[in-house]
Protein backbone atom coordinates (compact mmCIF):
# COMPACT_ATOMS: atom_id res chain seq x y z
CA UNK A 1 0.00 0.00 0.00
CA UNK A 2 1.38 3.37 -0.97
CA UNK A 3 1.64 5.78 1.92
CA UNK A 4 1.33 9.52 1.54
CA UNK A 5 2.20 11.94 4.28
CA UNK A 6 -0.02 14.96 4.79
CA UNK A 7 2.78 17.12 3.43
CA UNK A 8 3.05 15.02 0.26
CA UNK A 9 -0.69 15.20 -0.31
CA UNK A 10 -0.50 18.95 0.04
CA UNK A 11 2.39 19.17 -2.43
CA UNK A 12 0.29 17.24 -4.93
CA UNK A 13 -3.19 18.68 -4.56
CA UNK A 14 -1.96 22.17 -3.82
CA UNK A 15 0.12 22.31 -6.97
CA UNK A 16 -2.39 20.51 -9.16
CA UNK A 17 -5.04 23.06 -8.31
CA UNK A 18 -2.92 25.69 -10.01
CA UNK A 19 -2.08 23.68 -13.13
CA UNK A 20 -3.62 24.51 -16.50
CA UNK A 21 -4.04 20.91 -17.61
CA UNK A 22 -4.46 21.69 -21.31
CA UNK A 23 -1.35 23.89 -21.50
CA UNK A 24 0.79 21.76 -19.24
CA UNK A 25 -0.25 18.53 -20.96
CA UNK A 26 0.42 19.95 -24.40
CA UNK A 27 3.81 21.20 -23.32
CA UNK A 28 4.80 17.97 -21.63
CA UNK A 29 3.88 15.83 -24.64
CA UNK A 30 5.58 18.25 -27.03
CA UNK A 31 8.77 18.17 -24.97
CA UNK A 32 8.65 14.36 -24.89
CA UNK A 33 8.54 14.27 -28.69
CA UNK A 34 11.30 16.89 -28.97
CA UNK A 35 13.69 15.71 -26.26
CA UNK A 36 13.23 12.01 -27.04
CA UNK A 37 12.40 12.02 -30.74
CA UNK A 38 12.11 8.24 -30.94
CA UNK A 39 8.84 8.61 -29.02
CA UNK A 40 7.38 10.03 -32.22
CA UNK A 41 7.06 6.43 -33.39
CA UNK A 42 3.64 6.27 -31.73
CA UNK A 43 2.30 9.33 -33.46
CA UNK A 44 2.73 8.77 -37.20
CA UNK A 45 -0.82 10.04 -37.73
CA UNK A 46 -0.11 13.41 -36.11
CA UNK A 47 1.32 14.99 -39.24
CA UNK A 48 4.26 17.35 -39.06
CA UNK A 49 6.57 16.56 -36.15
CA UNK A 50 9.76 17.64 -37.91
CA UNK A 51 11.49 19.87 -35.41
CA UNK A 52 10.60 21.67 -32.21
CA UNK A 53 8.54 24.45 -33.82
CA UNK A 54 6.39 21.96 -35.73
CA UNK A 55 5.81 19.82 -32.67
CA UNK A 56 4.95 22.77 -30.42
CA UNK A 57 2.52 24.15 -32.98
CA UNK A 58 0.91 20.84 -33.83
CA UNK A 59 -2.75 20.90 -32.70
CA UNK A 60 -2.92 17.10 -32.44
CA UNK A 61 0.01 17.14 -30.03
CA UNK A 62 -1.68 19.79 -27.92
CA UNK A 63 -4.98 17.91 -27.90
CA UNK A 64 -3.40 14.60 -27.05
CA UNK A 65 -1.26 16.17 -24.36
CA UNK A 66 -4.38 17.56 -22.74
CA UNK A 67 -6.01 14.12 -22.91
CA UNK A 68 -3.00 12.42 -21.32
CA UNK A 69 -2.65 14.93 -18.50
CA UNK A 70 -6.38 14.91 -17.79
CA UNK A 71 -6.06 11.18 -17.35
CA UNK A 72 -3.04 11.70 -15.10
CA UNK A 73 -5.28 13.93 -13.00
CA UNK A 74 -7.23 10.83 -12.02
CA UNK A 75 -4.19 9.73 -10.04
CA UNK A 76 -4.26 13.04 -8.14
CA UNK A 77 -7.93 12.42 -7.31
CA UNK A 78 -7.27 8.81 -6.28
CA UNK A 79 -3.91 8.87 -4.53
CA UNK A 80 -4.79 5.75 -2.56
CA UNK A 81 -6.02 3.77 -5.56
CA UNK A 82 -3.61 4.54 -8.37
CA UNK A 83 -3.15 0.92 -9.46
CA UNK A 84 -6.87 0.39 -9.95
CA UNK A 85 -7.34 3.78 -11.56
CA UNK A 86 -5.01 2.86 -14.43
CA UNK A 87 -5.80 -0.83 -14.72
CA UNK A 88 -7.72 -0.72 -17.98
CA UNK A 89 -5.44 1.97 -19.42
CA UNK A 90 -2.56 -0.38 -18.71
CA UNK A 91 -4.19 -3.13 -20.72
CA UNK A 92 -4.90 -0.68 -23.52
CA UNK A 93 -1.28 0.54 -23.68
CA UNK A 94 -0.06 -3.04 -23.82
CA UNK A 95 -2.58 -4.78 -26.04
CA UNK A 96 -3.66 -2.06 -28.43
CA UNK A 97 -1.11 0.72 -28.32
CA UNK A 98 2.03 -1.44 -27.81
CA UNK A 99 3.84 1.26 -25.85
CA UNK A 100 7.10 0.33 -24.08
CA UNK A 101 6.54 1.26 -20.39
CA UNK A 102 9.87 3.07 -20.41
CA UNK A 103 7.97 5.83 -22.20
CA UNK A 104 5.78 6.38 -19.12
CA UNK A 105 8.93 7.03 -17.08
CA UNK A 106 10.25 9.43 -19.71
CA UNK A 107 6.99 11.38 -19.81
CA UNK A 108 6.88 11.46 -16.01
CA UNK A 109 10.36 13.01 -15.85
CA UNK A 110 9.39 15.57 -18.47
CA UNK A 111 6.22 16.46 -16.55
CA UNK A 112 8.33 17.12 -13.45
CA UNK A 113 10.54 19.49 -15.43
CA UNK A 114 7.52 21.32 -16.88
CA UNK A 115 6.09 21.74 -13.36
CA UNK A 116 9.49 22.89 -12.10
CA UNK A 117 9.68 25.60 -14.78
CA UNK A 118 6.15 26.70 -13.97
CA UNK A 119 6.39 26.79 -10.19
CA UNK A 120 10.11 27.72 -9.89
CA UNK A 121 11.11 28.31 -6.29
CA UNK A 122 7.92 26.71 -4.97
CA UNK A 123 9.08 23.47 -6.57
CA UNK A 124 11.36 22.70 -3.65
CA UNK A 125 13.40 19.50 -3.39
CA UNK A 126 10.70 17.99 -1.15
CA UNK A 127 8.02 18.96 -3.64
CA UNK A 128 10.03 17.48 -6.50
CA UNK A 129 10.56 14.27 -4.53
CA UNK A 130 6.80 13.95 -4.02
CA UNK A 131 6.06 14.48 -7.69
CA UNK A 132 8.77 12.06 -8.83
CA UNK A 133 7.18 9.53 -6.48
CA UNK A 134 3.75 10.18 -8.01
CA UNK A 135 4.87 9.96 -11.64
CA UNK A 136 6.77 6.80 -10.77
CA UNK A 137 3.64 5.25 -9.30
CA UNK A 138 1.55 6.19 -12.33
CA UNK A 139 4.21 4.74 -14.65
CA UNK A 140 4.25 1.58 -12.57
CA UNK A 141 0.44 1.33 -12.63
CA UNK A 142 0.38 1.75 -16.39
CA UNK A 143 2.94 -1.03 -16.80
CA UNK A 144 1.32 -3.35 -14.31
CA UNK A 145 -1.03 -5.21 -16.69
CA UNK A 146 1.61 -5.80 -19.34
CA UNK A 147 2.16 -9.37 -20.43
Amino acid at each position, binding site marked *: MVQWTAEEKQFITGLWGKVNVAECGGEALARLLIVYPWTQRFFASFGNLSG*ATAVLGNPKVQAHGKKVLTSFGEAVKNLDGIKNTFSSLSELHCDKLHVDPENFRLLGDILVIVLAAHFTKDFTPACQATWQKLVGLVAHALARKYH
Partner: protein
Amino acid sequence: MVLSAADKTNVKGVFAKIGGQADEYGADALERMFTTYPATKTYFPHFDLGKGSAQVKGHGKKVAGALVEAVNHIDDLAGALSKLSDLHAQKLRVDPVNFKLLGQCFLVTVATRNPGLLTPEVHASLDKFLCAVGTVLTAKYR
Protein backbone atom coordinates in the same frame (compact mmCIF):
# COMPACT_ATOMS: atom_id res chain seq x y z
CA MET B 1 24.30 9.82 -29.53
CA VAL B 2 26.15 12.75 -31.01
CA LEU B 3 26.00 16.39 -30.03
CA SER B 4 25.12 18.51 -33.05
CA ALA B 5 26.54 21.97 -33.59
CA ALA B 6 23.21 23.37 -32.42
CA ASP B 7 23.35 21.23 -29.27
CA LYS B 8 26.81 22.54 -28.46
CA THR B 9 25.69 26.13 -28.98
CA ASN B 10 22.65 25.57 -26.77
CA VAL B 11 24.68 23.99 -23.97
CA LYS B 12 27.33 26.71 -24.06
CA GLY B 13 24.52 29.24 -23.91
CA VAL B 14 23.07 27.66 -20.79
CA PHE B 15 26.36 27.68 -18.93
CA ALA B 16 27.19 31.20 -20.09
CA LYS B 17 23.85 32.33 -18.64
CA ILE B 18 24.35 30.40 -15.39
CA GLY B 19 27.83 31.87 -15.12
CA GLY B 20 29.13 32.28 -11.59
CA GLN B 21 26.08 30.58 -10.11
CA ALA B 22 27.14 27.19 -11.45
CA ASP B 23 28.34 26.16 -7.98
CA GLU B 24 24.90 26.88 -6.52
CA TYR B 25 23.24 24.97 -9.33
CA GLY B 26 25.51 22.02 -8.60
CA ALA B 27 24.68 22.05 -4.90
CA ASP B 28 20.95 22.45 -5.60
CA ALA B 29 20.98 19.51 -8.02
CA LEU B 30 22.71 17.32 -5.45
CA GLU B 31 20.27 18.33 -2.72
CA ARG B 32 17.38 17.48 -5.03
CA MET B 33 18.97 14.15 -5.92
CA PHE B 34 19.49 13.12 -2.28
CA THR B 35 15.91 14.13 -1.41
CA THR B 36 14.23 12.60 -4.45
CA TYR B 37 16.35 9.47 -4.81
CA PRO B 38 17.42 8.47 -1.29
CA ALA B 39 19.47 5.50 -2.55
CA THR B 40 21.96 8.00 -3.98
CA LYS B 41 22.90 8.91 -0.43
CA THR B 42 24.59 5.53 -0.07
CA TYR B 43 27.59 6.95 -1.90
CA PHE B 44 28.05 9.64 0.74
CA PRO B 45 28.01 7.94 4.16
CA HIS B 46 30.89 10.21 5.14
CA PHE B 47 28.94 13.39 4.39
CA ASP B 48 26.58 15.48 6.44
CA LEU B 49 23.64 15.55 4.05
CA GLY B 50 21.49 17.86 6.13
CA LYS B 51 20.07 21.09 4.71
CA GLY B 52 22.72 23.67 4.00
CA SER B 53 25.53 21.18 4.44
CA ALA B 54 28.92 22.68 3.66
CA GLN B 55 30.05 19.32 2.31
CA VAL B 56 27.16 19.17 -0.16
CA LYS B 57 27.90 22.75 -1.22
CA GLY B 58 31.54 21.84 -1.69
CA HIS B 59 30.68 18.77 -3.69
CA GLY B 60 28.16 20.69 -5.77
CA LYS B 61 30.97 23.08 -6.64
CA LYS B 62 33.13 20.15 -7.78
CA VAL B 63 30.36 18.67 -9.91
CA ALA B 64 29.54 22.05 -11.45
CA GLY B 65 33.21 22.67 -12.12
CA ALA B 66 33.46 19.38 -13.98
CA LEU B 67 30.41 20.23 -16.08
CA VAL B 68 31.84 23.66 -16.91
CA GLU B 69 35.14 22.03 -17.89
CA ALA B 70 33.22 19.59 -20.08
CA VAL B 71 31.36 22.46 -21.76
CA ASN B 72 34.65 24.27 -22.38
CA HIS B 73 35.93 21.18 -24.17
CA ILE B 74 32.65 20.07 -25.63
CA ASP B 75 34.32 18.80 -28.80
CA ASP B 76 36.34 16.31 -26.80
CA LEU B 77 34.35 15.20 -23.77
CA ALA B 78 36.27 11.93 -23.47
CA GLY B 79 39.54 13.83 -23.31
CA ALA B 80 38.32 16.52 -20.95
CA LEU B 81 36.77 14.01 -18.54
CA SER B 82 39.37 11.26 -18.86
CA LYS B 83 40.77 11.58 -15.35
CA LEU B 84 37.28 11.77 -13.84
CA SER B 85 36.34 8.76 -15.91
CA ASP B 86 39.27 6.82 -14.42
CA LEU B 87 38.29 7.95 -10.95
CA HIS B 88 34.70 6.80 -11.32
CA ALA B 89 35.76 3.45 -12.80
CA GLN B 90 38.50 2.57 -10.38
CA LYS B 91 37.64 4.23 -7.12
CA LEU B 92 34.10 5.65 -6.94
CA ARG B 93 32.25 3.01 -8.99
CA VAL B 94 28.96 4.87 -8.84
CA ASP B 95 26.35 2.68 -10.52
CA PRO B 96 25.62 4.03 -14.01
CA VAL B 97 21.93 4.46 -13.27
CA ASN B 98 22.72 7.34 -10.92
CA PHE B 99 24.08 9.66 -13.60
CA LYS B 100 20.61 9.81 -15.14
CA LEU B 101 19.16 10.69 -11.76
CA LEU B 102 21.59 13.55 -11.23
CA GLY B 103 20.96 14.67 -14.81
CA GLN B 104 17.21 14.84 -14.15
CA CYS B 105 17.82 16.88 -11.01
CA PHE B 106 20.17 19.27 -12.79
CA LEU B 107 17.48 19.89 -15.41
CA VAL B 108 14.95 20.55 -12.64
CA THR B 109 17.41 22.96 -10.99
CA VAL B 110 17.78 24.90 -14.25
CA ALA B 111 13.98 24.83 -14.73
CA THR B 112 13.30 26.25 -11.27
CA ARG B 113 15.99 28.92 -11.39
CA ASN B 114 15.91 29.91 -15.03
CA PRO B 115 12.72 28.63 -16.65
CA GLY B 116 13.01 30.95 -19.63
CA LEU B 117 16.36 29.44 -20.48
CA LEU B 118 14.98 25.92 -20.82
CA THR B 119 13.14 26.08 -24.12
CA PRO B 120 12.28 22.63 -25.55
CA GLU B 121 15.29 22.79 -27.90
CA VAL B 122 17.68 23.75 -25.11
CA HIS B 123 16.10 21.12 -22.84
CA ALA B 124 16.81 18.50 -25.49
CA SER B 125 20.42 19.65 -25.97
CA LEU B 126 21.14 19.86 -22.25
CA ASP B 127 19.63 16.42 -21.66
CA LYS B 128 21.81 14.99 -24.45
CA PHE B 129 24.88 16.70 -23.02
CA LEU B 130 24.26 15.36 -19.51
CA CYS B 131 23.73 11.85 -20.96
CA ALA B 132 26.98 12.17 -22.88
CA VAL B 133 28.84 13.19 -19.71
CA GLY B 134 27.39 10.20 -17.86
CA THR B 135 28.40 7.92 -20.72
CA VAL B 136 31.99 9.18 -20.62
CA LEU B 137 32.20 8.86 -16.84
CA THR B 138 31.08 5.22 -16.98
CA ALA B 139 32.92 4.31 -20.19
CA LYS B 140 35.82 2.56 -18.46
CA TYR B 141 33.73 0.61 -15.97
CA ARG B 142 34.34 -2.70 -17.74
